[in-house]
């Protein structure tokens, strides 16, 4: 054993421990801060992190995570937080924590410094644009268009020349008339030609008259009866030959019937399309009951949703999605790592349980909520862990105000399914500003609300439901004249709208969306507005509709006449031949039976007479 060698080893170990004690705390602190920043896109700061390399315990006094949309506020601020790492997992470069204890966690606390990291936030947004990101722009621009239409309500022309509008338009009901009419005419010619060679009606009539001519009651002799039976058989043969001939043409007649008989339905569609096209050309405002709430509240709702969806996406980024990150195969010279069955498999990061608690006595005085609850199964590899990540948090603060947050992020299967539920109870709306819109109030002066936001995000679809119940609301308006009627009406409605119930749904699928808003504002709005502008609009619309209807009716009547002719003269006899021939066949069968009965009766009588004559001669 070398003495100097032993001293060298001891010195090396001592230096390693010393470096660990001095620098590891800072390294771990920076590492955790960077990881959080990478997820949130905003600044994260840890105060006084302490790492115990022997027990693998980590603790800090304070953690601040800035709110990305509000960089001078904290999304989360924690007090004393402590946890221990799992050694066997750590040796395999897996960060597994059984329980994290967080004390005095708050949301919405103010920051002394700017917590924004705009470059990182932009990079995160570009890296993984969500379904919401993909349609948000479309929704906003559509709302702006709707708003423009709404604004033009005041410009409804006092007298609109509907006749010139209709005259200028390329009407389908006019253009298609010629097409349908010539179709009917050519079909008529075709069948006329056929009937000149084989008149179905005439043939039917002749058979019918032949059947009528057979009268079994007037037959007196057997020869006459036999003659009539022969006649019936001849009629049956003729009927069968006609049937064969007509069967060949029946399919053609049916096709013509199907095509021509649908013209009335087609006309209804053309009429509706012509009507819509003229409305578009007339640029009449669509300020209907259906989209009033959208125009009034749409942008503000989208703005609110955007913020909450960003929070949901931050949480979503913590948990890995199925199928993400495939490891590259190592180059050949590095050999191949063979995997064997493991008794315990850990995800790269797993916090089995995060327990967040606070003292009840603090609640009453707080302006921002202290969070309580737990987060379970927070992991970067949910399929390895096999359980979904669940959040169950609530925060109470002064004035019975409350925040509820529940989420289940299920990425354990091939396709992920995340549900988020955010509830805000009794929150003050004082000072809330609306998106700039001439109808909407500038701000809310006072009032409270309960807000619920439910988000369901899967591989294919994203469904968002936003529900707001406002109480004791008072609004502040911009200084402007209320010259136009709509603005004045809307402001009047707002002045009396102390309670506001608003529900909005957004469904996103394959980069298309459906965005709806309904509120009790709609009802009041429709009551007030229908007396004025909407009435005028309705009048104009009715005028256009009736002018078009008149044009269409005239043409329908002409076409109906032509169609009636071809149908009754040519198509109907062929289409109904089978029915007619069945009736005639029955009639013939009856006649034949009668004839046979008659024949049997006559023969019997004659036999009796002959027998009687013979007996008389013998006597």
């Amino acid at each position, binding site marked *: *054993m070398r003495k100097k060698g*032993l001293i060298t*080893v001891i010195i090396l170990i001592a230096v390693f421990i010393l470096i660990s004690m001095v620098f590891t705390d800072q390294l771990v602190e920076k590492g955790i801060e960077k990881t959080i920043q990478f997820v949130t896109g905003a600044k994260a700061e840890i105060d006084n992190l302490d790492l115990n390399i022997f027990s693998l315990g980590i603790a800090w006094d304070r953690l601040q995570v800035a709110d990305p949309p509000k960089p001078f506020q904290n999304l989360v601020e924690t007090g004393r937080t402590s946890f221990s790492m799992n050694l*066997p997992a750590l*040796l395999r470069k897996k960060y597994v924590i059984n329980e994290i204890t967080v004390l005095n966690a708050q949301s919405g606390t103010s920051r002394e410094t700017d917590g924004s990291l705009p470059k990182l936030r932009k990079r995160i947004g570009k890296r993984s644009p969500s379904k919401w990101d993909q349609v948000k722009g479309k929704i906003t621009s559509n709302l702006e268009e709707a708003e423009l239409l709404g604004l033009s309500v005041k410009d409804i022309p006092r007298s609109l020349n509907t006749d010139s509008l209709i005259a200028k338009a390329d009407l389908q009901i006019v253009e298609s008339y010629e097409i349908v009419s010539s179709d009917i005419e050519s079909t008529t010619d075709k069948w006329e030609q056929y009937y000149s060679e084989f008149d179905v009606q005439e043939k039917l009539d002749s058979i019918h008259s032949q059947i009528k001519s057979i009268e079994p009651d007037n037959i007196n002799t057997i020869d006459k009866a036999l003659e009539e039976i022969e006649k019936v058989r001849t009629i049956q043969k003729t009927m069968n030959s006609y049937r064969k001939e007509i069967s060949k043409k029946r399919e053609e007649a049916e096709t013509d019937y199907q095509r021509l008989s649908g013209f009335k339905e087609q006309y209804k569609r053309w009429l509706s399309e012509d009507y819509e096209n003229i409305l578009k050309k007339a640029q009449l405002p669509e300020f209907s009951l259906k989209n009033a709430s959208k125009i009034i509240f749409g942008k503000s709702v989208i703005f609110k949703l955007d913020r909450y969806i960003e929070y949901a996406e931050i949480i979503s980024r913590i948990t890995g999605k199925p199928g993400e990150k495939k490891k590259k195969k190592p180059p050949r010279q590095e*050999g*191949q790592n063979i995997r*064997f069955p493991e008794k315990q498999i850990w995800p790269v990061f797993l916090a089995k349980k995060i327990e967040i608690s606070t003292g009840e006595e603090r609640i009453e005085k707080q302006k921002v909520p202290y969070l309580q609850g737990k987060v379970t199964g927070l992991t970067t590899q949910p399929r390895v862990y096999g359980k979904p990540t669940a959040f169950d948090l609530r925060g109470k603060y002064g004035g019975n105000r409350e925040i509820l947050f529940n989420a289940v992020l299920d990425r354990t299967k091939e396709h992920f399914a995340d549900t988020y539920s955010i509830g805000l109870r009794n929150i003050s709306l004082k000072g809330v500003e609306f998106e700039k819109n001439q109808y909407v109030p500038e701000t809310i002066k006072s009032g409270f609300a309960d807000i619920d936001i439910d988000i369901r995000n899967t591989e294919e679809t994203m469904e968002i439901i936003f529900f707001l119940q406002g109480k004791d609301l008072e609004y502040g308006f911009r200084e402007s004249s209320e010259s136009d009627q709509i603005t004045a009406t809307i402001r009047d409605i707002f002045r009396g709208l102390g309670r506001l119930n608003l529900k909005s749904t957004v469904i996103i699928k394959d980069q298309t969306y459906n965005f709806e808003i309904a509120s009790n504002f709609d009802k009041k709005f429709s009551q007030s507005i229908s007396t004025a502008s909407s009435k005028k609009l309705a009048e104009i619309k009715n005028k256009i509709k009736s002018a078009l209807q008149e044009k269409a009716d005239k043409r329908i009547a002409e076409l109906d006449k032509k169609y009636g002719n071809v149908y009754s003269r040519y198509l109907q006899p062929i289409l109904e031949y089978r029915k007619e021939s069945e009736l005639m066949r029955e009639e013939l069968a009856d006649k034949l039976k009668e004839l046979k009965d008659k024949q049997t009766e006559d023969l019997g009588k004659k036999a009796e007479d002959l027998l009687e004559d013979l007996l008389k001669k013998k006597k």
Partner: protein
Amino acid sequence: MIIFKILSKFIKALRSHDSPSQIAWGITLGTILGLTPFFTFHNFILIILIILIKVNLSAVVFSLILYSLLGYVLDPVFHALGFTLLVNVDFLQPVWVWLYNLPIAPFTRFNNTVVIGSLVFALVLLIPHYLLFKKLVLKYRTSWNTAIQKWKITRMLQGNKLVRFYFKLRDWRG
């Protein structure tokens, strides 16, 4: 040229006061370091062992460099050997599974085909290597030393500043 300096040191080590066993063990342990990928747990233990026990360091360095070059060439052979041992030898499977589940397993990298292949190769050669090199050192000291000392290249290498520094360092270590 660094290779000549190392060669010079090694030749001087052969003539030093170190016993043939120390030099042979130095070469043998250097063989393991050279043949197997460097950053592994067994090499860490081996380096501590080399510092603690009395083996010839020049022999270790010389052997490490020589066998590293050889190891690079033999990588495909090590991979094939390692793959066979890890995958195709059924009776070894329970051993590998047990090792794989040990907390220390990730540091050993034993489940890497090149690591296990080269380590087994080096271990198999351990005793034959030791015996062969011990015999060669003895042979050198009794028969070849005088002849080699007369070579021009030997004298040239002995005058090198670095080599003189090495001697000082060697004397300090005792």
